[in-house]
């Protein structure tokens, strides 16, 4: 049995996790800090490059594990989000001479190890060819996050972790229950067999489909499964919040696409209605929730619910759905991380409320500009990447044979609503004058050199993704379109 070249990335990720864990436990303090932190993010970036370099032309299989060409941009997203999350943890690790308002992570090494394990789980999800591997992958992607959410020693962190654990277990229970019905209806756990045996006239199959979709809906925080998101975004440590908001969503979407174009392919037309329903209520509830938030992380949680609505809208479309979602995710991850990098710098010495962000443009023009670009990209304003991301999603939903024009019109209205609340953030950082009470207690904002560099790179990336057509078509080629 020879190993397919595309499998090297998965093996490399597993090895990287082992190296990080061993360095954390065996090396001396000084060497350890360098290897664990720099080794992890450099390793994840290299694995991202390796993913692209070993991208297979056609499906490559080893036993029951299948590496599909269209999953490559998703895998790239996981690596990028993992590396960014490690970089974002920098000011919460010990030994940087930096202090954070909420203290430092309980163990930086374990935190980084868990990020890599979770990334490996997401890789496994994209390679799954049967429901068992799929479930194990999803669990490996999620269980480390429960622990990571509790990595700060304050009550908010513990509360977020407990809530996430309970909601996460509930969603897993839904998924497993659904899988048992799919197995009963389709007589197999293998995707190829299920694709033929799961037909729309089987009641059993629908029970399974609904429960599995509900389970994944929790992971995606799509409405009506979104109620956990604000509390957990607010309580978890900043790098974990950013990771949950980006990578965990990307993995859920990759899994959803895998199911929709795999075992559920015969259910097409009825599934489209379910996605339309989910898309409409996610957009509406997300937008209404985001309008009235006062704390930045809660605001990001509601905005992510709305963003997922747009992505689900694309899933009602045809062949363009996969590449457009992949492109959108990449842009969304970068835009999200810019916002979280900025807010993490702010949050090191003040609570992350909007009132504390007033006057940011005077205190730190760089951070203010980055946050402005991030908000513009999330709102979908040209020429930034976010505009083309949203544009592609709308285009996918309007594909011939899937013309959901009412849905698109509804989404366009929601995009305008979302513009309003993203602009409120911009107004707070640029226009609203800080009151005396807001400003008097806040010391200067410190940015670590590594984080400043990352921010600049991310801002350049999001502009390039928006204005350079080659970057855009490169992602589409990777996704096999």
């Amino acid at each position, binding site marked *: 049995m020879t190993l397919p070249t595309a499998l090297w990335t998965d093996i490399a990720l597993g090895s990287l996790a082992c190296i990080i864990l061993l360095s954390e436990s065996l090396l001396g303090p000084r060497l350890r800090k360098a290897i664990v932190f720099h080794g992890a993010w450099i390793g994840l970036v290299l694995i991202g490059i390796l993913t692209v370099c070993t991208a297979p032309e056609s499906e490559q299989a080893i036993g029951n594990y299948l590496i599909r060409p269209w999953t490559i941009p998703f895998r790239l997203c996981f690596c990028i989000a993992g590396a960014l999350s490690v970089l974002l943890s920098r000011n919460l690790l010990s030994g940087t001479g930096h202090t954070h308002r909420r203290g430092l992570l309980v163990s930086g090494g374990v935190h980084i190890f868990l990020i890599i*394990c979770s990334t490996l789980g997401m890789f496994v999800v994209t390679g799954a060819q049967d429901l*068992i591997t799929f479930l194990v992958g999803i669990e*490996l992607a999620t269980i480390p996050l429960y622990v990571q959410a509790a990595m700060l020693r304050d009550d908010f962190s513990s509360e977020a972790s407990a809530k996430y654990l309970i909601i996460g277990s509930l969603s897993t229970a839904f998924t497993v229950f659904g899988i048992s019905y799919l197995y009963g209806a389709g007589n197999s756990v293998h995707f190829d067999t299920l694709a033929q045996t799961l037909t729309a006239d089987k009641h059993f199959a629908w029970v399974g489909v609904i429960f599995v979709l509900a389970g994944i809906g929790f992971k995606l925080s799509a409405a009506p499964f979104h109620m956990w998101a604000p509390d957990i975004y607010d309580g978890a440590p900043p790098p974990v919040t950013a990771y949950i908001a980006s990578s965990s969503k990307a993995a859920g979407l990759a899994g959803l696409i895998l199911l929709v174009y795999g075992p559920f392919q015969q259910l097409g037309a009825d599934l489209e209605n379910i996605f339309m329903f989910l898309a409409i209520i996610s957009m509406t509830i997300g937008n209404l929730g985001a309008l009235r938030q006062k704390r930045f992380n809660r605001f990001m949680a509601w905005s992510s619910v709305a963003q997922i609505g747009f992505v689900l809208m694309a899933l009602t479309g045809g062949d363009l759905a996969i590449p457009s979602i992949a492109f959108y995710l990449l842009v969304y991850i970068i835009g999200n991380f810019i916002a979280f990098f900025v807010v993490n710098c702010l949050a090191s010495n003040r609570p992350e409320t909007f009132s504390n962000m007033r006057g940011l443009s005077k205190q730190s023009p760089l951070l203010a500009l980055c946050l402005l670009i991030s908000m513009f990209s999330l709102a979908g304003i040209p020429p930034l990447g976010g505009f083309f991301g949203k544009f592609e999603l709308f285009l996918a939903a309007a594909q011939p044979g899937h013309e959901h024009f009412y849905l698109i019109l509804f989404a366009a209205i929601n995009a305008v609503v979302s513009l309003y609340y993203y602009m409120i953030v911009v107004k707070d950082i640029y226009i609203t004058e800080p009151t005396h009470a807001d400003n008097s207690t806040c010391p200067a904002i410190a940015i670590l050199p590594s984080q400043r560099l990352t921010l600049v790179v991310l801002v350049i990336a999001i502009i390039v993704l928006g204005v350079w057509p080659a970057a855009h078509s490169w992602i589409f080629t990777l996704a096999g379109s």
Partner: protein
Amino acid sequence: MEATLTTDILFYLFSAAILGCGLMAVTVKNLLHSAIALMGCLFGTAGLFLLLDHEFVALMQILVYIGGVVIFIIYAVLLTTHLGTRYLPASTLKYISGVTLAAIVLGLVLHIDPQATHTAVNPDRTATTIDAIGYRLLDGSTNGFLIPFEVISVLLLSAMIGAATIAKHQKPGATNDEDETGGSAS
């Protein structure tokens, strides 16, 4: 197992045990007693699996549900103050909503076309032995589950290390990393 008079009698015995214990589990006022009734209900289910020649599932039923879940519930009841001795109030509204929910589920189960359920069961599927399950887990072909089996080991490792890390006692005032090198895990 061949269907004989003995297996018929056993089937009705186990079913009666499941129904009786299940009813007890939801009606008994003491939480500890209802946990123990739940245990009986799960034992009955394990017995049904044994009658169907699925010894592995029966074993898992006892190991995971009775040995794991119910014992966990009992621990939680005993460790929580007074939950074992104080009665939890159950209002009429709760009874009504519970009965309604049960009726809806029963209706759904009866509604599902019995013809459709027949396709769910493969008639010539023989009893699965524990050996066969083991071989299938370590089978690297398209029919096996080698990759998930390996991935589970990573999952367990990360879960255990994570749990040990957040459960570790930390001295107040000690900075995070220096505390670890001291090896004062407790």
